[in-house]
């Protein structure tokens, strides 16, 4: 029930956005996420964007995983 998926905002008209999710364009309501802008990734749950996704945080997390993977490879 709590499934929510990332989508890219293509355009905004009032409180409704056109969001691309896996190549398909859907309407997402931005009332819960008024700060979202065109070009942002939002996480969409039952037709409502519930938050924007933070690209910087995502990059840092993946870099951390890279570093962990390198340590594991060196130990092998």
């Amino acid at each position, binding site marked *: *029930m*709590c*499934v*929510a*998926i*990332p989508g890219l905002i293509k355009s905004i008209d009032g409180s409704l956005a056109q969001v691309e999710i896996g190549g398909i364009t859907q309407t997402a*309501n931005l*009332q*819960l*996420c*008024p700060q979202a802008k065109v070009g942002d*990734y939002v*996480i969409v*749950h*039952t*037709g*409502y964007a*519930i*938050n924007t*996704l*933070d*690209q910087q*945080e*995502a*990059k*840092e*997390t*993946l870099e951390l*995983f*890279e570093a*962990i*993977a*390198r*340590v*594991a*490879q060196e*130990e092998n």
Partner: protein
Amino acid sequence: MKYASEFRDNRLARGLIAKIERSSRTPVKFMEFCGSHTVAIFRYGIRQVLPETVTTLSGPGCPICVTANVDLDKAIALARIPNVIMTSFGDVLRVPGSYTSLQAVRAEGADVRVIYSAMDALKIAADNPAKQVVLLGIGFETTTPTIAAAILQAKQESLTNFSVLSWHKLSPPAMKALLDSGDVALDGLICPGHVSIITGSQAWEFIARDYGIPCVVAGFEPLDILQCVDMLVTQVEKKEARVEIAYSRGVQREGNTVAQKLVDMVFEPCPAQWRGMGTIPASGLKLRPEYSMFDAEEIFDIDPGPTREPAGCICGEVLRGVSTPLDCPLFGKVCHPENPVGACMVSSEGSCFTYYLYGGKNE
């Protein structure tokens, strides 16, 4: 950045698994509160790749599973009232109440419609001014703000034929009740990622503080879950208990304050009955008196009659984490997705359904 495939990378997963193997000494039992986590853990085979020291356990975080029969019976009674259009998220239709299901009463002629979003129910109400449209408000913190937004929109549009039957529930009080019952001893909590987008990670701080249990908020990709397990193992080995976030691209400590305000405007806490856990104080949400014109419980006189539980079903124990679906004598024999005896076999996030789908026998 697509925020999906990057977090499914095999090589990076192996790195995280190696790290967990290296640091885990103490045998631990972690509970994933959320049904979507249970599904992800099975889908990506995470139980199989974790070291023997780490056990994961499914929790009560499946809104459909925890809905009590008395509430299901009410919705079914409501759907049978002539002139009512009952709108609901899909899985709910097949859940057996005491005597029948929404799907069965639909086959008998009741107007029950599946919706994807609360916005769909508003549209149905606008398109059918002569009918009463009821939205089944089900879900935890993730979903409640969308229903609150729909109620506020209905008010703004002066809709007079739209109402909500609120089954909304709060996750932290359920987790507290579970821990207070003493039924399960946990070494860590995999906190629900999308609930926490709304509540913030702060919602779990009382568990770390008052119960000394490490808490880590996780996303739903395999690397998210592995990072979460790694963080939990690290806390256990260091004898720490705090709240951390393994889903920092989506979750902050304060949560979504816009959504929190909308929910607080429309709803107030109330006692709620949970399948398997009885009535938990302040664990449900009902509409505030100012919004009673949208409260289906106020508008309709509903008498669902006496409730009863399906014989032999141990959903309640499964939801509390004291039994697994494999302990149920009906599992896979009498009870399977085509003939679900209990709610946990219906919901696509129910433990019984997930075990059945992914062959929990070889866990």
